[in-house]
């Protein structure tokens, strides 16, 4: 395979990374193609980005695609949800439990919302239902927690329910019955009935989408899957036709929020796996870099992906990204095996304002439209980006590599208007805003790590996205982190696409259990082969040779009277009593590591709640860390004209600061702070008292503790 091609579709741009591999003895070569995104027909922008990448490699698109593997980060599902352009979905749920999706576990729906919303009860509300009440049908059937059938499936009333939905023109049906995670017979039979009546419908069943205990989150996952099933089907079919027309013959691999690639057929069946895969790609890239090269000095990494509206926080512990079992869509929480990426409302577009005599930044954002004041697109409320340009961190003529010219004066005037009530001028307000947002970002990360049971001092911080380089060092200092890495700064725009290309194939299968200790080894032994066969089948379909599949087993357990569930690695082979004991011991050790010494109560035994198998296989074999910086030595003209920068926390006066053209810096370059390193798509800020250098992967690494 000569080309590894990663494509990441964002709201504004479609980014493509095309790596010519070293198959023919040449050095690997990385090229970036970019095109505007083209909603709703995203495949058009996709092909356009591929074409520009092929051009910079000096080949035709047909030629490149004929010998390429294409990896795709797909936001079509996410966009459909955000823009409410989803399918008309009907829900079949156990009779008496269709209201679960309206009740939303009461106050639990507010769990991830900002504090000021939680505190203001007069403003609270519930979101529009995902499925209108008229399209929710109760099904006569009931399975109990032990899998026993309390009431058999009543096929007559079920058929009538299905017909009512079909008559109302549903395009997809979500089926979620109580305890289907333990006994899926009724769900499967219901699906047969639906397809008998309406063979064309997209049908999504909860025991396949997300077989976990907890009907609310499982049902929402199934509904979300059904909502985006039809649009996803349309998109992928159109894209595959376009790719085939342009000479592509292999299967298309799609990024999933699980942290690996799945094939397009599987993505069509379980499109909910693609929701939220965007931020996951950056985290995968960071994990790849940390694992392969220990860039930043270790395998523990916090990722801070600073975009226009949000900061996405991820964690890599010992080279492995931290996972979680749920994701959120507004106030809706649903089960999906995902990497743990949390968004907080802090980014370049965060609005600077006053509330009484207090200066506040965010969580509201000016977004892309109207955007910051300095963009000159009609924005009147100053943002973090305005503050950064006023302080001198951004070159107004070299933002996005000069694609946008920033109006510094307008930004300063807007900041001055906000600061006036506090007696601050524009520059002082800018410094204050930056200090506040850096502190908020650090607090959010600290809270995330505390929740995960980690100590930030054992981590490096990887900052990426448009603002990762601006805020990274300040956040890391605040946290006491070891170092800051702005990964592959010169290719920053392609960072997500790199992550996608570096991902492995990953398929996860799980089965809900309800075992009490001592666990019956036979019960466990019966499950593994079934799960592994299902995983292998999917991966083989994905194009992976059967013998290349690696299985990783996990058992999710808890102390019987406590609610924290922990998934721990489980050994291979056949289980006997001793293996079960070893599993329990692993759980106890991991529980203590996460929740603290003596925090588990073993007195009444253990519960085994699910078994999971992750199947992985190498795809591109690309390791992000192996891509060395092109062009060896620092060019002598890398230093640009120094400029005046105001660094907050000092005396407020501007200081002349060295500025470097990052593109012209070579591996081994080092500079003490204060300094600014500019790349076409990102600006790296190096504060006082630390040293920045370019490492062999082309990443800027800032040592926070050593002045050069």
């Amino acid at each position, binding site marked *: 395979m000569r080309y590894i091609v990663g494509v990441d579709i964002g709201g504004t741009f479609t980014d493509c990374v095309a790596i010519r591999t070293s198959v023919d003895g040449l050095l690997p070569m990385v090229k970036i193609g970019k095109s505007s995104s083209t909603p709703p027909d995203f495949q058009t922008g996709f092909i356009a980005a591929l074409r520009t990448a092929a051009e910079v490699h000096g080949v035709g698109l047909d030629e490149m695609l004929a010998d390429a593997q294409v990896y795709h980060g797909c936001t079509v599902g996410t966009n459909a949800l955000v823009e409410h352009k989803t399918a008309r979905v009907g829900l079949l749920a156990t*009779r*008496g*439990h269709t*209201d679960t999706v*309206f*009740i*939303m576990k*009461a*106050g*639990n729906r*507010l769990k991830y919302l900002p*504090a*000021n919303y939680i*505190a*203001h*009860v*007069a403003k*609270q*509300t*519930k979101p529009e239902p995902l499925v209108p009440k008229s399209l929710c049908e*109760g099904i*006569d*059937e*009931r399975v*109990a*927690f032990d899998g026993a059938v*309390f*009431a*058999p*499936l009543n096929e007559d009333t079920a058929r009538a329910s299905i017909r009512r939905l079909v008559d109302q023109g549903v395009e997809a049906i979500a089926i979620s019955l*109580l*305890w289907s995670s333990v006994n899926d017979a009724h769900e499967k039979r219901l699906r047969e009935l639906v397809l008998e009546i309406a063979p064309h419908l997209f049908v999504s069943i909860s025991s396949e989408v997300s077989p976990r*205990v*907890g*009907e609310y989150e499982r049902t929402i996952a199934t509904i979300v899957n059904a909502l985006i099933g039809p649009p996803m089907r349309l998109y992928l079919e159109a894209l595959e036709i376009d790719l085939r027309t342009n000479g592509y013959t292999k299967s298309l691999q799609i990024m999933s929020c699980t942290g690996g690639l799945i094939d397009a057929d599987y993505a069509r069946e379980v499109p909910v796996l693609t929701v939220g895969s965007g931020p996951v790609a950056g985290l995968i890239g960071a994990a790849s870099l940390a694992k392969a090269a220990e860039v930043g000095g270790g395998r523990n990494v916090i990722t801070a992906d600073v975009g226009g509206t949000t900061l996405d926080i991820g964690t890599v512990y010992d080279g492995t990204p931290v996972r979680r079992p749920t994701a959120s869509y507004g106030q809706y929480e649903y089960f999906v095996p995902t990497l743990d990426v949390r968004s907080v409302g802090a980014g370049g577009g965060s609005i600077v304002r006053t*509330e009484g005599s207090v*200066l*506040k930044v965010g969580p509201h954002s000016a977004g892309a439209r109207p955007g910051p004041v300095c963009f000159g697109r009609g924005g009147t409320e100053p943002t973090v980006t305005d503050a950064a340009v006023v302080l001198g961190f951004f070159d107004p003529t070299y933002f996005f590599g000069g694609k946008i010219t920033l109006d510094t004066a307008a930004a300063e005037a807007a900041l001055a208007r906000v600061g006036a009530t506090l007696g*601050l001028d524009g520059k002082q307000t800018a410094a204050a805003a930056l*200090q*506040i947002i850096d*502190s908020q970002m650090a*607090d*959010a990360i*600290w*809270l995330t790590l*505390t*929740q995960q*049971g980690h100590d930030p001092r054992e981590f490096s911080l990887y900052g990426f996205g448009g603002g990762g380089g601006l805020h990274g060092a300040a956040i890391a200092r605040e946290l006491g982190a070891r170092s800051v890495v702005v990964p592959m700064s010169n290719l920053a725009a392609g960072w997500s696409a790199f992550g996608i290309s570096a991902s492995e194939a990953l398929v996860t299968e799980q089965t809900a259990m*309800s075992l009490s200790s001592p666990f019956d080894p036979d019960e466990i032994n019966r499950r593994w082969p079934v799960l592994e066969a299902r995983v292998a089948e999917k991966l083989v379909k994905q194009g992976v040779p059967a013998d290349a599949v690696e299985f990783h087993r996990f058992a999710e357990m808890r102390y019987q*009277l*406590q*609610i*924290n569930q922990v998934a721990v690695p489980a050994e291979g082979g056949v289980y006997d009593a001793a293996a079960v004991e070893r599993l329990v011991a692993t759980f106890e050790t991991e529980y203590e590591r996460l*929740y*603290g010494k*003596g*925090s*588990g*109560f073993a007195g009444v035994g253990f519960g085994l709640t699910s078994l999971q198998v992750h199947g992985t296989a190498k795809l591109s074999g690309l390791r992000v860390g192996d891509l060395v910086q092109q062009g060896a030595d620092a060019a002598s003209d890398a230093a640009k004209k120094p400029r005046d920068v105001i660094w907050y926390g000092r005396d407020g006066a501007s200081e002349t600061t060295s500025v470097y053209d990052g593109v012209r810096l070579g591996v081994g370059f080092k500079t003490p702070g204060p300094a600014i390193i500019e790349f076409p798509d990102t600006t790296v800020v190096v504060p006082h008292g630390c040293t920045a250098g370019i490492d062999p992967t082309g990443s800027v690494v800032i040592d926070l503790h050593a002045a050069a």
Partner: protein
Amino acid sequence: MASAATQIDWNGRTHSYRPRPDWRDRISPRLRLHTTYDDNLDPVTFEVIRQKLWTINLAHGETITRISGSPLLASLDFNMSILTEDAEVVVNAPYVQFLNAGAPLGIRYILETHAGKPGIDEGDIWCCNDPWIAACHQMDVMFAAPIFVDGQLFGWVANAGHQYDLGGIVPGGWPQNAEDVYSDPVVLTPFKMVERGELRTDMEALYLRQSRMPDLVALDLRAQIAGVVLARDQIVGLAKRYGADTIKAAMRRMLDQAQESFRQTLLKVPDGTWTEIRYLDEALPGQRTTQRTQLTITKKGDRIAINNAGTDAQTPGTNGIPFTSFSGSITGIISVSMLYAQLFAYGGCERQIDYDLTPGLLLCCDYPTAVSGGILQTIPMMNAVQSILSRMLATDDTLRPDLVAPCGDFMLPVLIGYDDRGKYFGQAILDSFGCGSGARSFGDGVDSSGPTFSPLSMVLNVEQIEQWFPLLFLYRNEDADGGGPGEYRGGNGMRSAITPYRSQSMTVVTNSGGQCISAQNCGGLFGGLPAPAGHYLVYYRSDLLDKARSGIMPASIYDLTAEHIVPLRAKSNGAPLDAGDVMEIRTGGGGGYGDPLLRDPDRVARDVDLGYTSADAATTIYGVALAPDGVVDIAATDTLRDRLRGERAAWRASGVNDDSPFIAATGAPSQRIHAYIASVDQDGERVLACDRCGHRYCGHGGDYKTAALMDDAPATAIPSNVDPAHFVDEPIVLRRFACPSCHVQVGAEVTKANEAVKAEMVFA
């Protein structure tokens, strides 16, 4: 403050502890307090520190839930706070609001009483569950850690969390049949659980010895300790980094801002007196009596005064609440309705509150009243506060959007028994956390929103509950007509039904607040109706099993037939449930706002279509006629509404003379002070007049209720309400008030029939 109040010895022994104005003078000089602060704190550092204190407090809570792993603490039945050295609450959390009220009281008690001996030292952690000192009831145990910086007491961090069991005559700690505190869970006055950083194993053993479930209580103990340790150490770190005086300046400023924000809100409200009456049923299980509580808040300038006069004296039984819960109800509801911008930093608002209280009444009861089971009576109390604050907010156009009618009351069924594997269980079903919230001045309450006083409290998944207890949830539905009707209706609660599954034995113990089983869940506002009562309705030997076997599942209790149908009482001790028996729990909705006849007919049609309002209520309460296809028949609706409004013309006058003092016209513009009443100049006088037709009710300082037409209807006039006569002997009615001229409904309340008409809002 009344002179009688100053003579009462509020020392935490018989009467609740309340710090006297000179309490600081009694702190032993051995303890050095950090009282200095940096006058020149800049606004940026302030905002940074404020955010950090908020984050530290959240991490405090996370630490508790993580380490404990307890389902109780995971459902957020706890709260945590950061306080100054003299125990003003600087940061509080969005969990159960009244729980933290004990911290400022308990810590001041410790400062006054124990600073000399045994002394308050660095590394200590104090524990207390005495309801007359620091706990809302014994089950919510407080842990408080002093924060020392450079040898001076800089501040405190504290939490209060619900325990599995701490003894007493009923497992779980809600003994409704406790005649006095000696049948309650154990009472522990403040003691050091941790001394200079070392856990006192002697005290730990003594503490755990009180519990039926010592191992789990031990875990929660460690979790609560770990929480305060984390928060304390983080604040010490902040003080080192920014300087103690800087952090203290930020804390003081947060308090000052909360105080100022509260003051500004109060200044927008005209001076006056607001009163709420609430009845509490059966002091002891089986009693067919109801007791009266009265809460009066007088607002003058930028201060409010709280009075409990008119409340019945405490009796044997569990209807009393101590000062901790009483004051917590007030600050808790202020936090979510007047101080939301301050993110629960309610310490500053306490500076503006005076209490003029008589001890020994049900509100503010004395030792040794039973109080553990009475914790549920804090909810009707909070609902009373919510009604009063909402009426205050209604008097100003800028504040009115923040008002919320009360949410559903609390029902706590506890299931006790053994499963078919011989395992004991004893746990509450917390479906009341799916109650509806009250209506607002601009829109309906939120259906199954969760309680206003604890915004994050949740309803657990059915599958999670079925994993733990031998039962099946047959259904859990949004409840039609559960919220009080109104121009904007209250949010509906839920109906859930359970049946034993693989149980050896199962009995139900019921615990309920106020009159939420006999008469109403909560009041409405300004002519909006109260929400109907909930129920625990048992269908004994139903046809469930036969139906299920043939593939028919009930979606409503009315889909079943049974040999006996028994509504359980508000308080009961052990109704057995066997296979085939089904219990439906109907949890509360929120109160309505405004006259139901003014509700947009299309909203009524939509609610009927979605099952949120019954077709019957649409006609009889809302006066909306729907065509067979569900669309509003406009002409028929107009006719029906005219007829219903016309019926109010026959309502009677109160018979109470308007004795409002003459207040001359002020020249000020008309100001709405109620959904349909304005303060306005009329014929040279400042009067309260109908905002719709101009009818003069009374002078500006009068009581519009006594000047209105009134009518006593059966409580069952509230759609789907029960007949109170099933449960209490005293006649209870729905009393409604209307404008004598245009007949818009301006008031509606559930009251004892012999209760005199009582003003709800009178301006000074």
